[in-house]
């Protein structure tokens, strides 16, 4: 979810995208049903072990989680103040486990396979005029461009630090959002020029 596709083949690469998404959904629901912090901590440690064994040798991948740390710490602190430390452990472990599992799925699933697996699930959206192929492509694009966006944010932050010597403020989010909109425009043009829109329109007109 937050890092690029893992090109080194693992046992998870051999499993079809649909099964992986199904397992992810079932396990995630399972995690929401657990409320005891000890069980959740144990389950999360098991997920972490599975994650580390799968990405063996690609430890730099863990660095991509750094931007999530402030968010997790913030949520944990809020929960600890509002409902006690046990609730904080429950919330954090749930989130961490789900993020790790989602990352394992996206890291080991080719994007086109992911789109093919998502499209049938999204087909009911046709009834309200939404093209499932476009939605599945949108999901794929979010995954593809997450590292690009993180890199853009880092560059903006570095430019700010170079000029001010201070940490980048939240107001940098506004120009960053403008960058994202520009990027979206460029990607839309690239897709259009390669016939994506055209093909999907033709498919829909045949239906």
């Amino acid at each position, binding site marked *: 979810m937050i890092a*690029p*596709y893992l*090109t080194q083949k693992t046992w998870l690469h051999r499993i079809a995208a649909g099964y992986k998404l199904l397992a992810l959904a079932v396990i995630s629901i399972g995690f929401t049903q657990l409320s005891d912090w000890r069980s959740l901590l144990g389950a999360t440690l098991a997920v972490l072990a599975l994650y580390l064994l799968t990405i063996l040798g690609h430890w730099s991948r863990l660095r991509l989680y750094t931007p999530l740390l402030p968010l997790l710490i913030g949520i944990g602190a809020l929960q600890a103040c509002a409902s006690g430390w046990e609730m904080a452990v429950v919330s954090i472990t749930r989130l961490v486990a789900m993020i790790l599992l989602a990352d394992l799925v996206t890291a080991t699933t*080719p*994007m*086109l*396979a992911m789109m*093919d697996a998502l499209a049938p699930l999204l087909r009911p959206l046709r009834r309200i005029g939404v093209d499932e192929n476009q939605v599945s492509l949108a999901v*794929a*694009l979010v*995954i*593809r461009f997450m*590292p*690009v966006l993180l890199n853009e944010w880092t560059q903006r932050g570095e430019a700010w630090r170079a000029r001010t010597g201070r940490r980048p403020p939240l107001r940098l989010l506004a120009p960053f959002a403008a960058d994202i909109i520009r*990027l979206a425009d*460029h*990607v839309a*043009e*690239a*897709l*259009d*020029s*390669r*016939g*994506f829109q*055209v*093909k999907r*329109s*033709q498919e829909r007109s045949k239906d």
Partner: protein
Amino acid sequence: MSSPGDRNIILSGVSLARQDRPLFDGLSLEIAEQRVGLIGDNGAGKSSLLRLINGLLLPDAGSITVHGLETKAQRSSLPGKVGFIFQNPEHQIVFPTGAEEIAFGLRCAGGTAKEADAAARAFLAQHNCADWADAAISELSDGQKQHLCILAILVMTPSLVLLDEPFSSLDLRSRMKFMKMIAALPQQVIMASHDLDVFANFDRVIWMEGGKIVADGAPAPVIAAYRQRCIDSIGHAP
């Protein structure tokens, strides 16, 4: 394979405005040469002209015919004939691995997942880039990414390749390699660039300013005139 007669690009009285700002006002132009360069300052209309030719922009008035296809009426057929290389490969590559990126175009053209994947891998191997099939895009250099963009276009066997400032992120070695690849293409090529040296072996260069053609002809005189105008406008020789 297109016949020579199909290789014409004809713009007749093309007008286009964006946000009430006129970009082109009755532009007429015919392009039949195999290698054509577009030069001019930023905002001269080079990128907009390329976008008009591949149907990303449609004219408010006038008509554009590209290799026998009228861009307004036959826009849906253009992606099969016209390949477009954008300035920043990072914005053009949609998928996280090389094989998927190549396969995407084939699937858009109607191929099945398996066929497209097999054809993409074969195509990469044929171009001595088999290693990129499972390589993460983020692991490729800017030059390799631009190369992959070209391959993703070529796999669709277009008859026309448009390139919009393709060198901006490339180092000298990558740029030379890229130009060698462009020179070997059998397709008609129209390229916009600020790097004037790359047009030395082109058949024709068009200098644009404010959506109008200032000079048009063989590369050497057109480039010399543009260079002189740049020198004059800053007041002294560089």
